């Protein structure tokens, strides 16, 4: 049973990666590397962890997700499609005028998007807000957020880290997509946020370090986060930018570039997935 579940999630992640590739190729612009590094975490959250109702996206008691690294929108959109929030056809309108799928998440246009993001550093504050409201209303929904490791260079992230610990937001779980790259290169070369784990510890968080591409480890960490009372949890997920496509892996150059038709075909071949666009 457990093994079946993991295989199911891994298969979903593969399909989600294929949809990320195809939607970006059809848009001919967008953020490939950081969408692929986040894919497994998003699949685990939406298909196993979060209590949501795709036919009722604004259900007040739902668990919430904030994509603080909003540029990974294609990963979120692909997951929302597979979850049934809206039809697949929308994926091929990504980033076009009038589309419900904006370049960065837009809660007013896209069913299932809980917060508009895109300006780095702000999403984690908004997630705190949702968690604080949950405490005020004595609701037991949980809030999840996903941050980039370059995003940790924003001072606001650390203001928010202080807020979450001070208000004992144990209903909040943040992931850091620790893929070691930002736009201008390695995070340690541009402006190092390391040691990330020690920083969050010092800020009063429960800190878990995992392989962000291992479904077992992701699910296990979330269970530990749920069981932790009195403080927020951060799951520092070791990831590979561009994960799953050999020629995109660990390449800063694939941050904000979409695959062309030929690169798309090669990527799909590597994934072993056929997509009908």
């Amino acid at each position, binding site marked *: 049973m457990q093994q079946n579940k993991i295989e199911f999630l891994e298969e979903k992640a593969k399909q989600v990666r294929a949809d990320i590739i195809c939607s970006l190729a059809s*848009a001919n*612009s*967008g953020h490939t590397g950081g969408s692929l590094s986040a894919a497994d975490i998003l699949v685990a959250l939406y298909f196993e962890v979060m209590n949501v109702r795709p036919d009722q996206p604004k259900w007040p008691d739902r668990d919430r997700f904030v994509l603080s690294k*909003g540029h990974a929108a294609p990963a979120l959109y692909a997951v929302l499609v597979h979850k049934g929030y809206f039809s697949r056809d929308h994926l091929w309108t990504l*980033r*076009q*005028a*009038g*589309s419900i*799928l*904006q*370049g*960065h998440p*837009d809660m007013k246009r896209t069913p299932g998007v809980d917060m*508009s*993001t*895109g*300006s*780095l*550093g702000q999403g984690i504050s908004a997630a705190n807000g949702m968690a604080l409201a949950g405490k005020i209303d004595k609701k037991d929904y949980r809030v999840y957020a996903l941050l980039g490791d*370059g*995003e940790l*260079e*924003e*001072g606001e992230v650390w203001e928010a880290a202080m807020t979450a610990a001070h208000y004992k937001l144990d209903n909040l779980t943040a992931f850091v997509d620790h893929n070691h790259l*930002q*736009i*201008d290169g390695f*995070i340690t070369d*541009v*402006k190092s946020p390391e040691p990330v784990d020690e920083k969050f510890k010092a800020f009063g968080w429960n800190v878990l370090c995992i392989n962000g591409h291992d479904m077992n480890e992701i699910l296990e960490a979330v269970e530990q986060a749920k069981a932790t009372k009195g403080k927020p949890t951060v799951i520092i997920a070791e990831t590979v930018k561009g994960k799953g496509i050999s020629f995109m892996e660990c390449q800063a150059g694939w941050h904000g570039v979409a695959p062309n038709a030929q690169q798309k075909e090669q990527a799909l071949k590597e994934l072993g997935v056929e997509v009908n666009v």
Partner: protein
Amino acid sequence: MSEKIATREAYGLALAEFGAQYENIVVLDADLSKSTKTEEFKKKFPDRFINMGISESDMMATAAGIATTGKIVFASTFAIFAAGRAFEQVRNSIAYPRLNVKIGATHAGITVGEDGGSHQAVEDIALMRAVPNMVVISPADAVESRAAVKAAIEYDGPVYLRFGRLAVPVIYDKDNYVFELGKGVETAPGNDIAIIATGMMVGSALEARQKLSQEGINARVIDIHTIKPIDKDIIIKAAEETGALLTVEEHVVNGGLGGAVAEVLSEYRPTIMKRMGLYDQFGQSGKPGDLLKLYKLTPDDIVDEAKALLQRKP
């Protein structure tokens, strides 16, 4: 008018060019040096380039600190983060003490395109124009951008420079073009109506002027590259000589170029006018060309508005 260059490109090249002559220039960026083109400066002068990481507020106040030592500091990021996220650092640490920091804000306006509304600054002119001590410059093409960078270097005080992402036509001749801070440019003559534009909309206004001339309408095109301090004289003269003013900007009409021109007219010479731009709206994702159509900012739209305005002319 065939060659096309993005003004951000001209900005990066100008920094690299003037960096040799002005050894006290220091350039800061916030993980966008490939996009803002400050990497051109970084390649030539790595010791005077500082990547601040994704920390725009920190970058602005750091720039202020560097400027206190007598250096000329250029701090660059997208306009939305320069004027938006770091607004108060710009206001209190740069403008209030009147420090010598130049803010190189790229990716302004809706022609950012596919990244969408979260990344399209459509209110930065209004924000920066409201700040005391701040000079606001919005160049029309690559030639004017280079000249604006030079003028900003030679001016002692805070300057906000607004550049675009999209490649746009080069409209000025680089050997003859003269940039004067605070002075508008009469880019093309005409006495039936004046189209006052800024940024890439100057090129669109020139295209519109051609189309209008085929219908016997002679439109003057005025390029307001310095939005603050604004050139009152060129606006009042246009009002006197044409009697109808159309402003065009890639920005909300409130508080931007249209607002600035309206302020001058209502105080000195009330004249009928129309402001083209965004009307209390955010941008969205799309190809730049599609968005210009959607938000009615193409040369054809300018032609339509010019004709409509002429109908109202007394």
